[in-house]
Every structure is written in C-alpha cells, then in structure tokens.
C-alpha cells in the first residue's frame, strides 16, 4: 500500500521559508496571502498489512520528521 506523509513546522516554531515566501508574494502580484507554512510531503510504498500504520508512524518519529520541531500526519491508501 501507499503512505502519504505530511510534515509541518510545529505551531509557534519559526518557519523562515514560509515567511520569506509570504513576503515575496505581493511582488508577484498575489496580495493578501498569509500564514504560509512550508513542510514536507513524502510518499512511499510498503507491504500491505495490519502493521503498516504502526510502521509508518514509527518511521515518521525516527526518520522522516523531526518531532522536536515538526508535526506530522499520514494516511494510508491502497495501491
């Protein structure tokens, strides 16, 4: 099956990338955009099974996300 992992900067943690994008958008003609936050989107395939959810959760904790400064969510989809 496939896992889709969404990683975002924790609330309250500075996100320099988001900030810089936000500040540059008006110059490109996009006004009024706010709260830009830049995170990661990871896709991976793993063997079907009961344990898949737990495995992805652990992967996120251990490797994919940095739980000290990032939050993550994921979903499992067949395929």
């Amino acid at each position, binding site marked *: 099956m496939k896992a889709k992992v969404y990683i975002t*900067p*924790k609330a*309250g*943690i*500075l*996100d*320099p990338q988001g*900030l*810089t994008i936000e*500040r540059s958008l008006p110059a490109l003609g996009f006004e009024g955009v706010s709260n830009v936050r830049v995170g990661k989107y990871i896709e991976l395939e793993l063997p079907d099974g009961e344990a898949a959810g737990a495995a992805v959760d652990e992967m996120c904790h251990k490797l994919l996300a*940095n739980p*000290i*400064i990032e939050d993550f969510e994921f979903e499992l989809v067949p395929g």
Partner: protein
Amino acid sequence: MSATGQKPAYELLGLKEKEYRGICDAMGREPNYTELAVFSLMWSEHCGYKHSRPLLKNLPTEGERILQGPGENAGIIDIGDGLAIAMKIESHNHPSAIEPFQGAATGIGGIVRDIFAMGARPIANLDPLHFGSLEKPRQKYLLEGVVEGIAAYGNCMGIPTIAGEIHFEDAYEGNCLINVMCVGLVEQDKILRAKAEGPGNLVLLFGSTTGRDGIGGASILASAEFDETAQEKRPTVQVGDPFTEKKLLEACLEMRDKGLLVALQDLGAAGLSSSSSEMASKGGVGIDMDISRVPLREQGMEPFEIMISESQERMLAVVTPELKDEALAVCEKWDLDAVIIGKVTDTKRLRVFLGEEMVADMPVDALVDDAPTYIVEAVRPAHEVDEPLAEDHYRLPSDLNETLTTLLRSPNICDKRWVYEQYDHMVQTNNALWPGGEAAVLRIKGRRSGVALTTDGNGRRCYLDPRRGARAAVAEAARNLSCTGAKPLAVTNCLNFGNPEKGEIYHQFKEAVEGMAEACEAFETPVTGGNVSFYNESFGQAIYPNPVVGMMGLVEDVSLIGTTAFQDEGDTVLLLGNARAAIDGSEYQLRIDGEVAGRIPDVDLEMEKKLQLLVREAILEGLVKSAHDVSDGGLACCLAESAIAGGRGAVIELGTDQRPDLLLFGEAPGLIVVTVAKNDLEHFAQLALDLPVSVIGRVEGDRLVIRAGGADQVNLPVEQAAQAWGAALEALVHG
C-alpha cells in the same frame, strides 16, 4: 504574585529564596511576575556569572593592542594600519544536545551577531566540537546534525568556517560541547559599542519578529543540569533564519557606515531584558520601552514573554531622533521589521510599558551587576594524582607500525575533511592557508599582513590536571599560530565545565582559570572575552573540564607562512624542544590501553616562548620548509601528518633514552618538528643559539621510517598512512 501549585514562582523560575529576597531588597518591594521573570534570567548563571565572576577576575585582560577587553559583545584587538579584529567564542552545548541542527545553527547566529554588534564584518567562524564515541548511533546523529547546522547557517551568511577541532570521548556522551567562535574585521574608527547614551535618544528594535520560541531557552538550558525534564524544555528550541541574519548584518554595517548608530547590541540570551538593561547599564542611563510596539509572531503573548523571548535575528540600537528616519529607511531597504520601541532616560531604571500602562519598573544596576556571586569550597578529586605513571606501566606493543596506523585512524587524529568540506571555507577569498593545517591564516585584502586563528581544548588532560591542562591548551594554541609564522596576540575562551555547585567541579574550574591566566600572562596574550558554560552534566556525570582557547595571531607577511607539509627530498628534519613525552593523558594511552590516568607533564612556558619565537623568526627569514607541533598521537603522528600533507616520506633516527613507544607516541607540550633545507641548516643553528634543537632525520622517499634503538620501529608507505588517516572519519560516520 502568582504561584503554581506548591512552589513559589521564584523557585519555578530557578531562583533561590535568598536570591528572591535580594530582588525584593533591590526593588524596595515585591516584584510582579514580569519583573520576576526578567530578574530570574538576568540573575541566572548564564547571564549573571554567579559562580565564575570572582575567578574570572584572575585572567589578564589588558595589553597595548587590546582596544576592547571583556565586557562588550566581543573583544577587539589592534592589528595595525587602523584595522582591528573583533572576536568572541560561545557555547551552544545544551540547545545542540536537544536539537543538533538548530542548536548549532543558532549558535553560529548568536556569535555572529556579537561580532557585527561591534561594527565588525565577520570574516571567519571556528567550531571546536566534542562528542561521545562515534560507535554510538546517537553520537553520529549529533555530529551530522551539528555539522549540518553550522554549515547551513555559516554558509548562508557567507562567513567561511575555517578551523576548529573535533574530539570524541565518552565523557561527552550525554553532553556534547558545541562551541563556536566568530572573528570580524573592523576599521578602528568604525567600532561600535553597546553603550546607550543621551537621554532622549531612541531605542530601535529591528530584525525578526518576536515569538514564544526560546522562552528561557539559552539561559535556562545553560543554567541547570540535564535530566529527565530536558524533554519538557524542548518547546524552547529556536529555529535559525540565516537569511534574515544576513540582511541584519548588511543593514547594521550600512547604518554603521552612515554613522546612524549611537549604540548597537544583539538580542541573545534573555532577549530584550538583557539587551536593554545591559545597554542602559553601560551608559549609566535608563530605558523606557513600550513593548506593545514589538512586532509579534504569535498572538496573545504576555508582557513577560515578550521581555524574555529568545527569538533569533534581532538587534537593538540607540539612534538620535534626527537620524531615526534614516535608520528606519536602511531597515526598510533590507526588508527588516523595525520599530522605535522606546527611549533613553536618565532614570537608571528599566521601565516597561504596555501602551500607557507600566508593567515593570526595575533598577538597571541591580539587574545587571547585582546578581549574587558564589564561592564554593574546592575539593580536589581523587583521580588527580601527583605522580605520573611509571614508564613501564603498560605493556610495550609488539608492532608499532600497527600502533601508528591505529592512532592515525583515531577520530581525534584523523583527517577532518568530512567536516570542513561541508563548510564553505573559501567564501570571501581570504584563505592564505586552507583548513587541515596548523591554524587558519587569512590575508587582509590590500595589505601584506594577515591574521592566523586557532582553537584548542584538551579536556582529557584537564581532567588529569586542570591547571596544567589549561596552561597546555594556551601553549598549544600559541604554538599552532607560531608554526604558521604568526605572533600570538590575544585569546578568547569558552570554559566548559560541570555543575559548579559541586566542590570537585569548582576545583577544576578554579585551577583551569588560574592555569589559563598564568599561560596568557606568559605569552602576553590577554583574554578579550569569552563564555562560561556550566552544568555540562547528564545524570550527574560531568564532562571533562574543558577550557577551550580561541587565539588570534598576526602574520606580518602572508606570502611567508609555514605549512605542515614536507617539501623537498633531502630537507633536514629537526626536533625543537626537550620536553619529555609521557603516556599520561595521551591519545596513545586512550586508544591502546583504554585509560585516562596519571599526571600530564607541565609546559615550560619560558622555553615554549623561546622556541616559538625561533620558529617565527625562521619562517620570516624563509628558512622553514615545514613546521608542525607535536600534539595528539605524539612525534610519530606529527611526522606522519607532515609526510601525508607533503606526499613525501622521511627517515628518522631517534635517541634511545625512553621506551620506543613513548618516544613515538608519548605527548608533552613544547615540541615542534621543522624541516629546513640542508643549505640553511647553519643559518637556522645561528638563530637557535643554545635552544634545544636536534637533527632527527631527513625528508626522503615515499615511506615513513622511524628508527630507535637500532631497529625500524615504524616503516610504513606514506600512501598507506594517508589512506588510514584520510578515510577514517567518513568510515566511522557511515559505518
């Protein structure tokens, strides 16, 4: 006064009852919560130097080249021609242990701000690092994260990270040492200071917005031991934004050039609280601030949060009302948030307003100067002994070729390329000597002269004898500079120790500071500033006491600098110095016998000075083909490193007054290997006068051969030594 649960608020903020009473006395009343929070940080160990201040007074801080000693954001040293060097070192140990990448990155950010707060343009970073053994996965993770963090921040800023050191020992397993040093160049008439002056002048806050990140971060983390609650302190982790800092740097230097600044100060530990009160204290004035004007990143921040937030990339300046608009315009040009948040007063009080409402009113002097100091009864730990180990204490290894290879592979000795290639060490195009040598040398564009920089720490030796160890650290730093031809001028230091409330740690601290003072006196290298990092313990286990020395020297002519590389076939190899090498505290002892024990030899400061002068003079006269000091791994490793660097072998013949392994791998401060062309030997001897100099061999072939007692103790192709030395670190990290 709000109290959570059973404990009074001051205790939750890390203050002792007696300290709380002191605050009440200074205030003439009970402080409100905002005031208490500000006091608690200003009187924390990190900001208040409660356990170190009395002892730091022993360090020599003055000299004719010292334009600014301790007390400002950085020290400043006159290098002639109207130019000066600003330098400072700092620790970011605890934040890096929690989040290595961001911890190290914000460490760089902090120290760099200290340098441009003086009006200097940063020209180099250095990074002395200490971790636990790389056999542990967590230590690899820390190493990778820290190096990437330093790289990410320093590279983005365009400041070359040109030197440092990196050691791996079990004592740092629970508490790594991440020290960072920054060096800047400034024209003497453009030096800025953090002295708020002129009541009526305005206080300008600029740079990033203020958020809750890092509330109590650096100061709280650095003022208590690591334990289970470290986990809970995690939300205080700060994220660095080097891009904003780069703009901040350029904006500050532009304001400096336009003469817009009365005073400049960065916001570091304790944020707005410390920066405003310290600026006021230096000028003997007061400051009124309206913190409702502070641009915030988060909603609903309490006044105390705004006052103590450690959000990065912010600066505070004092400007005159006339020039305020010009200053704001520079900030706007660099796309930085900037607001006038207050004004200088003659009250000597720090008064904080939220709009019209006054939320804090504190005496500046009490905040800055009156943190209590503590003197602890020193206790000499049992592992410090008077006598060195007997020379036959350990068994003589059967194959010294193998011993040498093992030492060359030691992560404490091997090639550090894996680290420094992640750093942009060339940007600004000033490297007269690239990383990997004895010290870094930067030319100064448009001049003949240059500056040499190095850091040295030797915790293991300080553990065995903190006084001798500290003396040795200073001597080694000076020796490294002298081997490039630079005359040592000044020191900045980062004193990394355990919990000073314990007698044994206090003893180590006291001995080390006194030892450092002695050596700095001897070398006439005053201490221009530094940093004290206490509570480097995890679960009650302290790190090795580690006073790290950052030293700067002046090179008269950058076209005449010494390198460690053997040059030409037939050059004579000379050993300068007569110190007797010992196994105590050596890398050899640690690697082969798995121990750290005994007593390290003391440095002969007078002899050391003479030898270093000799090397410098000989370099200036063009007599020296290579110069390398004997340090980790002893004479054999020193020779191997010069052979590897030059891609040339040597044949060495040593005396026989010691067991061969001690001759080869024993360590003692005060030894330097130089090579000299045969024709220059006589000239060199004239310079050396009656100093101890012995011919020990010549550069020859493509093998390193070391004979002692009539036998080849080492006989190794240089290529093979290079392979062992060059591949070790990467193999350890990825293995």
